[in-house]
């Protein structure tokens, strides 16, 4: 049973129902309220809510915390105002142009900045804001003025209205549009990808998400919407001044709307914007007006306290209290119950008869870090459908090898051939993933703020459409035994389940070769046994090739078809498990020369 709104939007979650209910309520309110000041607050609140929501796409979902968004607002405002005043171009078109300019300019600075670490990205966005401000101020001064006035000539074409009600309605409609866009994104492949990037960029790369590309998409949408809001801003105040739009405090406020309300959520920015606007205004009225600095002082304090005590935003505080209310609303569809098992396991995944076919070949692979050689002239082959174990003492280069194979590191020398294609020059994990290599991480990298189901969906979307991906994800989740926890948030899971989730994510992209890095680490004996059953299950049902790094000798001996042993970056032994366990070199590598002597003597 599916419920859908007439636009074909599938509103599946209780909260989103509530949001639309309130939005339509806002429309009614905007039509009938007469008090000008309340209308003014409404206009501002809705505008800010849109700004916060747009910011949320980049800052909340994609995890790129921007404090430069006011720049887009300004570019939008100035573009449309300039075109309107100089050429009489209607702001309805002007705003699109403003949006395009914003996007273009944003890409120039944001794109190269995406790979910067957290704080440096923030600084880059602040630098961006300041640069744009300087350019606009310089332009305005050289034109002989500085502040821009828009004459009050009301008409629909001019986007200037006699009554504030019209502005309020316009803003609500805009907000609704923004929310719809957000929901559409969230439920689409782009949404999954963007959120995955925000949660854990490396893990996202490893399931085929090109993080730079999708951050770009997030930026484009965010900048465009913010610029349009800038046009509305200009047409409402009929006044544009550089300090008004290119202000750092405004940029901070935009981020605050989302953060205070609940970062990454749809409702968050709306709640945040309304509450902050009301607080700001009334503080100014009751305290600010009379005691000036005291109002701002309190604002500063509240900011500090809020950040320390309520980092998840107001929503994180309200949600548990209203959970019972939400449950009463028309319920979510259990997407996983859809019976159509319409996905097809790619042919290669069915049991291959030609077991001796080589799927991966590594030739003279070398990796240096400065003076240290981590991987030294490694040579080996992996056969299709086998389970190859990779063992060795700590620091022997096992994880480095995996990093080289999965595209996280670039080889210093040597070749890697996957299905006879050279992939050693591909330095991008997501492209390697698309070739058919999957990988899990030793320290698990779940998408913490997403559910188990969503975690698997991200990878499943690589080769499938949404509905097929859902079916496939259901299958994988059942396979690893996490079915009962499919709607739990990943961050709430205990370690053994996180390990299974990690494997599920590895499988989600239907890889031909899956690299498992110490998937047993941290588990107790029972948990390990359960995980081994899972792995055997996988091998039987999916027939994919597995390469496993493991320290637990018993497990890896019993699981693997063959084993490779590394020590100080070189291969010191290769063969069947029984051979390896008796190999003197191997024993001495693990236990030291003394034991070698003992082994020989015993």
């Amino acid at each position, binding site marked *: 049973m599916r419920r859908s709104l007439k636009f074909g939007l599938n509103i599946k979650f209780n909260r989103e129902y509530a949001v639309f209910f309130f939005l339509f309520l806002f429309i009614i309110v905007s039509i009938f309220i007469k008090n000008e000041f309340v209308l003014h607050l409404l206009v501002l609140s809705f505008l800010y809510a849109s700004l916060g929501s747009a910011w949320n796409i980049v800052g909340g979902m994609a995890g790129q*915390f921007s404090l430069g968004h006011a720049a887009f607002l300004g570019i939008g405002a100035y573009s449309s105002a300039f075109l309107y005043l100089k050429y009489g171009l209607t702001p309805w078109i002007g705003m699109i142009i403003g949006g395009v300019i914003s996007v273009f300019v944003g890409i120039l*600075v944001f794109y*190269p*900045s995406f790979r*910067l670490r*957290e*704080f*440096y990205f*923030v*600084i*880059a966005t*602040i*630098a*961006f804001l*300041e*640069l744009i401000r*300087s*350019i606009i*101020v*310089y332009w305005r*001064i050289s034109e002989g003025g500085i502040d821009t006035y828009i004459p009050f000539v009301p008409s629909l074409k001019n986007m200037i209205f006699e009554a504030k009600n019209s502005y309020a309605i316009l803003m609500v409609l805009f907000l609704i549009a923004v929310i719809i866009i957000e929901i559409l994104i969230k439920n689409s492949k782009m949404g999954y990808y963007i959120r995955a990037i925000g949660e854990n960029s490396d893990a996202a790369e490893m399931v085929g998400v090109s993080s730079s590309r999708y951050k770009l998409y997030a930026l484009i949408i965010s900048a465009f919407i913010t610029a349009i809001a800038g046009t509305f801003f200009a047409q409402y105040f009929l006044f544009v001044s550089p300090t008004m739009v290119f202000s*750092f405090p405004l940029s*901070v406020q935009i*981020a*605050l709307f989302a*953060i205070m309300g609940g970062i990454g959520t749809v409702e968050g920015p709306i709640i945040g914007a309304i509450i902050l606007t009301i607080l700001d205004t009334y503080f100014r009225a009751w305290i600010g007006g009379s*005691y*000036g*600095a*005291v109002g*701002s*002082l309190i*604002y*500063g*304090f*509240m*900011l*500090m306290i809020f*950040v*320390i005590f309520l*980092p998840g935003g107001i929503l994180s505080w309200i949600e548990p209290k209203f959970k019972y209310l939400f449950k009463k609303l028309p319920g979510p569809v259990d997407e996983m119950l859809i019976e159509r098992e319409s996905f097809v396991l790619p042919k290669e995944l069915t049991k291959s008869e030609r077991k001796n076919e080589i799927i991966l070949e590594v030739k003279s692979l070398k990796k240096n*870090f400065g003076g240290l050689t981590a991987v030294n002239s490694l040579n080996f082959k992996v056969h299709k459908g086998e389970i190859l174990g990779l063992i060795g003492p700590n620091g022997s280069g096992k994880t480095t090898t995996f990093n080289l194979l999965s595209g996280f590191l670039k080889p210093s020398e040597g070749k890697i051939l996957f299905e006879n294609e050279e992939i050693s020059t591909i330095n991008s994990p997501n492209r390697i993933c698309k070739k058919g290599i999957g990988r899990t991480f030793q320290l698990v990298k779940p998408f913490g703020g997403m559910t188990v189901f969503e975690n698997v969906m991200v990878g499943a979307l690589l080769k499938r459409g949404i509905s097929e991906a859902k079916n496939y994800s259901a299958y994988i989740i059942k396979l690893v035994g996490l079915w009962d926890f499919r709607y739990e948030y990943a961050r709430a899971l205990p370690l053994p389940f996180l390990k299974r989730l990690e494997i599920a994510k590895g499988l989600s992209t239907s890889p031909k070769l899956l690299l498992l890095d110490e998937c047993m680490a941290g588990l107790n004996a029972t948990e390990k046994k359960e995980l081994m059953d899972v792995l055997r299950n996988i091998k039987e049902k999916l027939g994919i090739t597995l390469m496993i790094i493991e320290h637990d000798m018993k497990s890896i001996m019993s699981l693997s078809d063959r084993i490779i042993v590394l020590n100080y970056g070189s291969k010191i032994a290769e063969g069947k498990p029984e051979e390896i366990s008796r190999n003197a070199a191997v024993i001495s590598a693990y236990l030291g020369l003394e034991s070698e002597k003992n082994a020989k003597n015993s």
Partner: protein
Amino acid sequence: MEKIFIELLINGIVLGSIFALFSIGLTLIFGIMKIVNFAHGEYIMLGMYASFWLFSLMGINPYLSIIIIAPLFFFIGYLSQKFVIQPILNSPMVAQLLATVGLGIVMQNFALLFWSADPRSIQEVFIGRQGIEMLGVKISYEELMAFIIATPMNICLFIFLKYTKLGKALRATSQDMQAAKLMGIDVDKIYWIAFAISSASVGIAGSVILPIYPVNPTIGINFGLIAFVVVILGGITSINGTFITGIIIGIIDSFSGYLLPSVFKESSFFIILLLILWFRPIGLFGRALA
């Protein structure tokens, strides 16, 4: 033409030593302790006010008042760390940033509330506006003092961090807090000492800056932004790097102030900052961590 070049250069070096002076503290907090303190500029502002009031109300020469201000700000740093920074020490960067933005707002409005918006400035400390002449350019004693005080401060901090037990403990903690704890280092103490030292250095900077520039409650952000640019450009963990970069930025500021329209003055270092972040993120003097 040449004379102007020299004048700009010397002006830049003097300005740069001022930048270095108030940025060194940030190297300690942000570079080494990895605390994002967006209120750094406001501490500078408070340092200037403290020096101003000591001068106006008690007639104490700003350079002498360092004796009072250094311990005072050491204490203020301690308080800040205990009450504001400690709770957010392990929070995500964003939380630290926003919390310290809030702190900055509080400090700014505190100043506004108690000391009004009037700009405060003092006459030159050295009567008769004496100065020295170097290469045909006049440098006032006040400006010279900025350079004279910045240099030993830099050296002291450098020696402290590199050679003293406490300094080493500080660096160890910044690199790996868990390991430091295991080695018996009292990590909580380290953090407040770091903040306190940084705060004291900023207080001293304030005293030195006051004779040259007026202070009002809102100037914090201008100084703060420059400090971040200097520290990041310099390679965040390097004290000497901050000093030299400060001078470099001062020189750039001076020349861009001459060549470019005023509104682009700050932009010139933002552009440089972006370029460095994109192409050499470890900064001019940073060492890449393994």
